[in-house]
């Protein structure tokens, strides 16, 4: 390299720095844009649901149960109750299952068990929602209507709140298990050894050390799972029965919010108030998911900081 070439190298050095700066600002733009998406969705939903909020009070919308869009009655209560019931059922039965499985995976099992269970969970997590729906229709619906329901009620089609809860539970199972496993693995090994060396059994160690230590994290994980469960659409829609009513028993059909949105959106746009009402249901989902997510993420983050 001669002196002249060196000059060129100096120039390319300036060019390199320029490239670095330019790339930096392009990346910054992408980052900001993707964050902006969140604000955009929120704002869009609010603007679109303003018409109905101006017409009716929020109280009336959320806590009355008359749903006659053609006559202008928009009571969201049946849908909200439907969502709540389905979510509660799903969480109630998956919580113990996922908790015990996660404890088994982190505390007791040998490595080969993990090698078998984790791929199975991966499969479960990866299956499309619609496949769960098909499975629900083929397996859970007949089981409920033929075997389970006759013991409790006179007649059930099988397309019920309970069915939706079961199917939804299986869908959030892998999420819950992986959240719990992550949580339990973050507990330092020393803590367990301290307890074991005092003569505690494995289960006692789990009960008094692990579960106690990770309790806030478990709350956060469950919150996260709830917010995921609430938004699940297609699978629930396929098995829940889609009947606008307050579910009286577990074997009645119900109509959760996402199902309302999926079934009616895009068709009833001639009625501006109806469209606005549907957007309000999307907004409700958005707000719930937003709040739940922020809360649980902040808790989880705080735990991460204290444990590390």
């Amino acid at each position: 390299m001669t002196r002249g070439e060196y000059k060129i190298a100096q120039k390319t050095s300036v060019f390199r720095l320029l490239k670095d700066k330019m790339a930096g600002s392009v990346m910054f733009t992408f980052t900001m844009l993707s964050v902006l998406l969140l604000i955009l969705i929120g704002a869009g939903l609010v603007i679109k649901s303003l018409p109905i909020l101006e017409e009716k009070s929020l109280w009336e919308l959320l806590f009355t149960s008359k749903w006659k869009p053609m006559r202008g009655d928009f009571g969201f209560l049946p849908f909200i109750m439907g969502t709540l019931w389905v979510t509660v059922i799903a969480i109630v039965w998956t919580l113990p299952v996922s908790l015990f499985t996660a404890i088994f995976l982190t505390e007791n099992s040998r490595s080969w068990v993990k090698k078998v269970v984790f791929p199975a969970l991966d499969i479960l997590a990866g299956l499309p929602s619609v496949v769960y729906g098909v499975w629900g229709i083929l397996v859970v619906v007949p089981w409920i209507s033929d075997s389970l329901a006759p013991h409790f009620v006179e007649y059930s089609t099988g397309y019920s709140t309970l069915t939706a809860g079961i199917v939804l539970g299986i869908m959030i199972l892998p999420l819950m298990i992986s959240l719990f496993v992550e949580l339990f693995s973050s507990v330092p090994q020393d803590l367990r050894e301290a307890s074991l060396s005092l003569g505690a059994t494995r289960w006692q160690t789990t009960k008094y050390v692990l579960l106690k230590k990770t309790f806030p994290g478990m709350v956060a994980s469950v919150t996260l799972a709830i917010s995921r469960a609430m938004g699940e659409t297609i699978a629930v829609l396929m098995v829940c029965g889609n009947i606008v009513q307050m579910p009286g028993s577990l074997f009645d059909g119900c109509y959760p919010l996402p199902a309302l949105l999926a079934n009616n959106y895009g068709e009833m746009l001639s009625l501006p108030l109806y469209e606005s009402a549907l957007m309000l249901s999307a907004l409700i989902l958005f707000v719930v998911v937003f709040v739940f997510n922020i809360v649980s993420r902040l808790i989880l983050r705080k735990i991460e900081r204290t444990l590390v």
Partner: protein
Amino acid sequence: MKLPFLSKKIKWYMADWNETELKKGFFRPDQKFRTDNAMRSNMVVDHLNVTIQGNHILKDVSVEIPDRKITCIIGPSGCGKSTLLKSLNRLLDANEDVKITGQVIVDGEELYAPGVEITHIRRKMGLLSQRPCPLPMSIYDNIAYGCRIHGLRNRKKLNMVVRYYLQAVGLWEEVKDRLHSPAARMSIGQQQRLCLARGLAVEPQFILADEATSALDPISSKTIEDLFLKLREEYAIVLVTHTLRQALRIADYVIFMYMGEIVEAGTAEQIFKHPQKELTQKYLSGVFS
């Protein structure tokens, strides 16, 4: 230069061997040969203060790094040795909440002046970290990476550089048949030597080593130490170490630090034989470490 038996592949690497060009260097043609004794590189630390997350880590550190000598920074752990080393290279900037006042001056350029172009100054300083950290690519690319960045893209010249610096650190015979296999597959001692070669390939004047032998087995660390002694003829080497014996073996100059301050600095003989401060005497006699 006498050539060993050459396989076909190696012949290819040898085709355009030009030792003069290599010695002269590709990235510093404004200087004379590094073998010229008149050429001196110069690094001065001037009243450097570093505060990380509210902790005052370095307190008013002023010192001069001599060229073509091995300078050992010694002191108990947590005294700011590594921080001082990183601040010589401006690598502390990558962390949040770091406040730095004072100056490091390399060949007349102020590192901490606003708007300074840091990349060409960093090129002048090779860094060897505690654990060897090869880049996630092949052995060949590890060495070629820095050269490519600084504009050397000629394949033949790159081949030459790779071989030259692998020879310089004594790796060539060990890896010449697997130059294109991942660097991660080498032993840890080899990895550290590769990191050294990678640093040398961009023709630095300084070598900064942060406890470079502490993760290695005794034989590998001996190899690295011997390399440092050899490289002393051409480079200024700054070595952070917490093993006094290593400092005794190879240091020309010694800087003793305690609680973020330089307690004493001088030639190895001065510090080890006639320490002036009480703290230094205590440390050297093993009262604390």
